[in-house]
């Protein structure tokens, strides 16, 4: 059995679904293949929901700015689902002189890229977010940053793409991509094969093995991070928060619960058999981090914790690229833990690449062949 479409997308994460949606809007036929039983079961449903421009790599910054200006503000309306987007700013908090140096560097890089981003004092930070502890002595402040609900965003793109006729197949793990007459054309699974004029590989860390089936390697590793969520709390603030020390990051959701992500320092040393399993060490560590900045939340109850993997590229920026050796293949992987915020922009750009159009923004910085040995 061979199912055929203009474009076959491997991976139903927020990148795959957004791409499917923008392609369907252009009138192309699309099949999305997902290994898991559930749509968007990887990092797309497990991240902290940051829609952030500050702290971005200079190559990624234009994508983040474009999304915050042109896509996120109208996304709920466009997709017909509230993706709970808030553009209330981002505070990155510092408690020591070393932290302030880290923040000053971030501010300088952001400003160089044309972003509205400033250093503020501890008191100014407390004016923006009055619940911060006195330990905070400074912060970077980007008023146009924000956050959204990653579960809703991923499923909203899925819902809308499906309405536009995109076929989604779940429980279908891809084994290999095969060339036909020198061009990537066939996506092979255990029981089926899918044929497309263009094949987009957006399967997170699993992309590495699938790309290897056609002789391409992207240097990335799998890091496991954890997130926790509190019971519904009274409305406190809607800024996105991070810290210079990377103790935690997070926000208060529309629902009222706080969503905080973080790590224990063991991210790269996970068991490997189930990357969605939480450890007994990480959530308590995140809690300790949070309470130093928000003592008021000490009595907030944690209802749930979960884990998810990051496909961390060796230079911590994604691969968004055609592949010269394999015409017809587009790679979209290695998002290194900050793919969610730029997902709408990336989906738009990849749809343009697949349709053979000029891309809205330059993607040459994300080429697959940029990796060089150290000597």
């Amino acid at each position: 059995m061979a199912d055929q479409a203009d474009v076959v997308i491997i991976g139903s994460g927020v990148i795959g679904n957004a791409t499917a949606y923008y392609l369907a809007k252009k009138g192309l036929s699309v099949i999305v293949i997902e290994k898991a039983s559930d749509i968007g079961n990887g990092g797309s449903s497990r991240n902290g929901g940051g829609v952030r421009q500050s702290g971005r790599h200079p190559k990624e910054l234009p994508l983040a700015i474009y999304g915050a200006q042109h896509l996120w503000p109208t996304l709920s309306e466009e997709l017909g689902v509230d993706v709970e987007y808030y553009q209330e700013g981002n505070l990155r908090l510092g408690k020591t002189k070393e932290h302030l140096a880290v923040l000053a560097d971030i501010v300088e890089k952001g400003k160089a890229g044309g972003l509205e981003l400033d250093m503020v004092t501890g008191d100014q930070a407390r004016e923006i977010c009055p619940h911060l502890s006195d330990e905070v002595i400074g912060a970077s402040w980007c008023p146009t940053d924000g956050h959204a609900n990653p579960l809703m965003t991923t499923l909203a793109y899925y819902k809308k793409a499906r309405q536009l006729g995109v076929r989604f197949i779940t429980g279908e793990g891809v084994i290999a991509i095969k060339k036909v007459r020198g061009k990537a054309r066939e996506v092979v699974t255990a029981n089926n094969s899918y044929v497309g004029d263009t094949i987009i590989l957006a399967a997170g860390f699993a992309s590495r093995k699938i790309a290897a089936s056609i002789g391409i390697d992207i240097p990335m590793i799998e890091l496991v991070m954890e997130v926790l969520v509190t019971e519904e709390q009274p409305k406190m603030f809607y800024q996105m928060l991070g810290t210079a020390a990377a103790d935690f990051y997070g926000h208060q959701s529309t629902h009222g619960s706080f969503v905080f992500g973080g790590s224990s320092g063991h991210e790269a040393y996970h068991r490997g058999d189930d990357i969605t399993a939480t450890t007994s060490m990480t959530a308590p560590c995140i809690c300790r981090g949070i309470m130093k900045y928000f003592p008021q939340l000490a009595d907030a109850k944690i209802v749930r914790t979960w884990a998810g993997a990051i496909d961390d590229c060796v230079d911590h920026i994604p691969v968004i690229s055609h592949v010269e050796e394999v015409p017809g293949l587009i790679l979209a992987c290695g998002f290194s833990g900050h793919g969610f915020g730029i997902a709408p922009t990336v989906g738009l750009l990849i749809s343009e690449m697949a349709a053979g159009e000029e891309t809205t923004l330059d993607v040459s910085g994300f080429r697959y062949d940029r990796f060089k040995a150290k000597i």
Partner: protein
Amino acid sequence: MSKIRDRSIDIGTYCPQPDDQLIICRCEEITKGEIRQAIYDGMHTLTELRRFLRTGMGPCQGQSCSKIIQGILARELKISHLELEPAMSRAPMRPIEMSVLGNEVKGGE
């Protein structure tokens, strides 16, 4: 091993039912009608329903409603409820204060 499922299979169109106003997830106050509508919008697993509607995301974490939702989903998809994987249960088993959960490190010292 996950079962292959085509999300474009025709399950008909959403027709309101007399008891659609019934609250199924009591923690998050989600009705049967909202759950049925989401199924027709493409949410074909318990996990997707939970992520889309917040069913089972409240204080009880689905301990009251998950069986009922499983039944609703199986009926709408016209499959056996045995074919549906339950949504993942997660730590902690009961809601626990941040100050208590964060206090584990000193235990052995």
